């Protein structure tokens, strides 16, 4: 009896940790796709770039993990801002398909570059000793890394919620997205707002890519491989809703982990059936705007 309860609890914790990681890599897309309405299929590629840069700092420059990750985030933000100023700027005005084409093209190019620079083998950030090992709470063992992941994601979620939904910047951003022309007419510097926002989205991706790499190891095809799951989180959460993404990521993480244990026969169906059900009941996502 107690063992089944313990099993359930430890699965639940795993599901939460997994969900939090999903949140971390997809929340940036909630901002670029959900809020800015850019069909940014390059999102996971930015996560990968972040991961590789952090790896480079740790392995080649000997920087400590806790410094390497923020550095990688900043570097990815810079790359993102640069690309936003050049490539993305072209496609804001175009229809969704143009954006899709451009960003998928960009993903291909990034993939090829990474393949040539870093090779095809899998890599992941070596965790510092402080994040290794397990600790136990009663009969429950929890890995330090997963606990850290949960904490970090929660902090990010809170900071973002404050930033987007509670500041003037957030309102300006939403105005610019709603109606660029009119936003300019009320004195909003639309290009600057977009650049900053896009860079933030990229930085979040990088954070997710770096911190999540023990679960989703880095490889050149990362950008394509983990695109769908990230899109699913954003869609299920509801376009542009940070809260929604958080709920969606947690829910999917839990359903996935529990489903695999309790409904093994359904295998890969579980998550897709769940998505189907959620979207049919709530076509605009968990938290619809």
């Amino acid at each position: 009896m107690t063992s089944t309860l313990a099993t359930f609890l430890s699965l639940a914790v795993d599901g939460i940790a997994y969900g939090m990681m999903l949140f971390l890599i997809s929340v940036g897309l909630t901002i670029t796709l959900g809020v800015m309405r850019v069909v940014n299929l390059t999102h996971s590629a930015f996560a990968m770039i972040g991961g590789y840069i952090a790896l480079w700092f740790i392995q080649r420059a000997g920087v400590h993990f806790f410094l390497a990750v923020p550095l990688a985030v900043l570097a990815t933000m810079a790359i993102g801002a640069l690309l936003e100023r050049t490539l993305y700027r072209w496609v804001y005005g175009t229809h969704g398909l143009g954006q899709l084409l451009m960003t998928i093209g960009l993903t291909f190019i990034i993939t090829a570059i990474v393949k040539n620079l870093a090779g095809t083998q899998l890599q992941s950030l070596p965790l510092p000793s402080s994040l290794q090992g397990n600790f136990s709470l009663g009969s429950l063992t929890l890995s330090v890394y997963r606990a850290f992941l949960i904490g970090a994601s929660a902090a990010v979620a809170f900071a973002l919620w404050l930033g987007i939904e509670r500041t003037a910047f957030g309102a300006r951003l939403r105005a610019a997205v709603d109606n660029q022309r009119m936003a300019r007419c009320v004195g909003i510097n639309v290009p600057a707002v977009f650049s900053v926002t896009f860079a933030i989205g990229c930085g979040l991706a990088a954070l997710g890519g770096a911190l999540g790499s023990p679960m989703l190891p880095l490889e050149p095809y990362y950008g394509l491989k983990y695109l769908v799951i990230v899109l699913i989180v954003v869609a299920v959460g509801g376009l542009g809703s940070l809260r929604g993404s958080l709920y969606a990521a947690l829910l999917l993480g839990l359903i996935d982990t529990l489903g695999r244990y309790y409904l093994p026969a359904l295998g890969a169906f579980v998550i897709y059936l769940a998505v189907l059900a959620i979207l049919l009941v709530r076509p605009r996502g968990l938290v619809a705007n």
Partner: protein
Amino acid sequence: MTERVLELRDLCAGYGETVVLEDVSLHVDAGEALALLGRNGVGKTTLLTTLLGLNTVHGGSVRYVGQDIAAWPAHVRARKGLGLVPQEREIFPSLTVQENLTVAATAGTWTLERVYELFPRLAQRRRNLGYQLSGGEQQMLAIGRALIGNPRVLLLDEPFEGLAPVIVDALVEAFGKLREGGALSIVLVEQHAELALDLTERAVVLDRGRIVWQGASPDLRGDPERLASLIGLEEVQ
């Protein structure tokens, strides 16, 4: 000697390669109100949006308080005092009423409180999202949003459309007070020519992108035949 706030010389402008406005020259002085009249599709809206830098300029110049503003992006023009009330209102649908106002706010005499005072209806609806507003409420919000940017020139594109008569009265009164100090100039596009002429000192009539008449508003108001021939009014009481 009053200050020349806006001055257009031989302005040609349009959408991409299509030229809509041709050789438009006009000026607006501080504290002055100018009516812009003409049939549907003659280019009134185009003139206002060109002032904010939203269209393609093919020739001529626009000077604002003495400076050539050709190179200014739209948001700078807005920050420096050009406030537009667009014809289709263009409320930000996913912002609340209050946010619609605060994103446009700059320091000045117009504050959130004063806008709410002018339009009590907006105060009631302050938490509603933009797309949930009634047509007239959107119109009020569009005007409020322009005012709260504390402009020097208010560009009004059919601001009374969809407003209840009482509200129109209140607005007319408010505009009158606003201009008293000479701090605000107004360019008013309005389909009801008589109303527009009553409210302004001077008027410009456009036809197919060109200015066909320019002069004092009372002159035109008092000359129904000319008005009819200029903008196609058949009968004027």
